[in-house]
């Protein structure tokens, strides 16, 4: 009784190698994004026609691109875009997925049938193709790309939240709440939601790498971020023509992406071990 569950949780965090490594990696990305102005030696769109396609050196750590922009600086500024994608994307998917999942699981009946059908339908369509279709309709740009990815991804949240809601809504304390005069809305958001937060956190951390990857892919395909944005996907796509003369142009943004996605991935893995009771007991 003395050791609070929260403290206990943090103690077990230290012991989880996956979680700690992932946490440090993601934290480093966040720190770089916050202090981008201090870390980056040049501006992300500071073109210098005299230093085009320079190999990595002391002056330009990762070299320069075809317009003479410092790649290191661009990658540093790119972390902001990546994190923005992660935050907004996860936020959007959460809001859509959790709300629909709660409604579907709590009320059941025709509403549930309809939403489940819709979720299954979105599952059937290959994600990227659907995202491209959505972007074609609502127009390109980073924000629209994020929206498109969210429209593709909401279903996995809804499914997860729906399943959890259904199992919790039959527990005795929900009945207590109802017989206490609580409205359906407050049952959903004050009784059920807090009880499925661990599941939601795990789902978010498992979905984040995918969200980042897909949005980057859209940028790579030219329907996401627009030049001169230092989006990593866009940088890789800009490097295609110069791949023989300046391979660093595509290697470094690619590595940055791998680093970030890998960090989120093992952070998610670690979180799942820590939070998902079912996995823990195995």
């Amino acid at each position, binding site marked *: 009784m003395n050791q609070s569950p929260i403290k206990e949780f943090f103690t077990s965090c230290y012991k989880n190698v996956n979680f700690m490594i992932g946490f440090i990696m993601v934290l480093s990305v966040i720190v770089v994004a916050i202090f981008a102005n201090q870390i980056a030696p040049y501006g992300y769109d500071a073109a210098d026609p005299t230093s085009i396609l320079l190999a990595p050196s002391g002056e330009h750590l990762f070299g320069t691109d075809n317009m003479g922009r410092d790649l290191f600086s661009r990658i540093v500024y790119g972390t902001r875009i990546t994190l923005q994608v992660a935050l907004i994307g996860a936020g959007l998917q959460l809001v859509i997925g959790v709300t629909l999942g709660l409604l579907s699981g709590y009320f059941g009946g025709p509403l549930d049938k309809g939403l489940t059908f819709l979720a299954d339908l979105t599952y059937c369509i290959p994600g990227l193709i659907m995202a491209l279709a959505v972007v074609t309709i609502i127009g390109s740009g980073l924000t629209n790309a994020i929206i498109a990815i969210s429209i593709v991804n909401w279903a996995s949240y809804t499914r997860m939240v729906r399943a959890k809601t259904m199992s919790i809504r039959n527990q*005795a*304390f929900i009945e*207590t709440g109802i*017989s*206490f*005069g*609580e*409205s359906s809305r407050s049952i959903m958001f*004050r009784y059920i939601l807090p009880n499925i937060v661990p599941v939601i956190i795990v789902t978010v951390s498992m979905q984040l790498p995918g969200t980042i990857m897909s949005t980057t892919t859209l940028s790579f395909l030219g329907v996401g971020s627009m030049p001169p944005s230092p989006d990593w996907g866009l940088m890789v796509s800009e490097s295609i023509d110069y791949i023989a003369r300046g391979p660093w142009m595509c290697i470094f943004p690619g590595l940055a992406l791998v680093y970030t996605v890998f960090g989120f991935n093992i952070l998610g893995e670690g979180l799942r071990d820590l939070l998902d009771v079912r996995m823990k007991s195995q």
Partner: protein
Amino acid sequence: MGEKLLKVENLCIDYKVKDGYLSAVNNVNFELRRGEILAIVGESGCGKSTVAHSLLQLLAGGNAKVTGKAIFNDRNLLELKRQEIEKVRGREIGMIFQNPLDSLNPVYTTGWQVAEGIELDGVSKEEAWKRVIELYKDVKMPDAESRAKSFPHELSGGMRQRVMIAMMLARRPELLIADEPTTALDVTIEAQILRIIKALRDDFDTAVMMITHNFGLVAEVADFVVVMYAGHVVETGTVFDIFDEPKHPYTSLLMKALPRIKKTEGRLQTIDGSVPRITGDFVGCRFANRCPYATEQCRTQEPPLVQVSGTHSYSCFREGGDK
């Protein structure tokens, strides 16, 4: 004897099942006055809890068909709309459930949960918290202040049931429905909980509807008793009517199944068989298949309602119960 608070008339509840309708509750009538403790007694599967849940429209949606009336303060509870019944729940009728161990939200402190209910009535946070501490003292919670800040998993079963009672009393309901409130608890805690319920009745004039299968508990607290079997009320009366002169064979058999201190009857008696599943057209007495006195008449005709006195009635062909 206080004014009439709840009057249940011809309450029938049928569950839709694969092969038609399952009659869970049939033609139940009873009344409850302010400050009165009514016990509904019967085995598992007799429809006791179904009756209680139906009053607050808590039956699993869709497949239960409820007919009849439940007049509470001049309103028929069974016909109230969703928003209206939400206001009745907790505010006018509180309900304590069987299993205190799972009946509290695991992610909030117990005090917070009780306070939340009080805040539904538009009371400020500090005021609500003060009320919580008072309530905890009312239900004899040891160390009220720190228990209010505990999470449910940090409390024992008895304490959690006290929290439940505090929660349901928080809004001063006129009627408290206790659905087997002590089943999951041990005997010493049971006695304490019963004392609390009785004290609350005395202090606040709350009517209590107690659902139980334990006749010992009935003798302890109840004023009136409704004995149910397979969805039928087989006998009603004051606690003295029922204990001194049980008329229906089921009542007497249930009482024989009570553990006693004197070992005069050897082993504890049991009633053979189990409650039948009543579907479709059922004729005759529902207890006939287990009744030691059943005759041909019992299997073909519905037993009549016999009025013994103003308060005591039963439905059986036999006279004089078990004797």
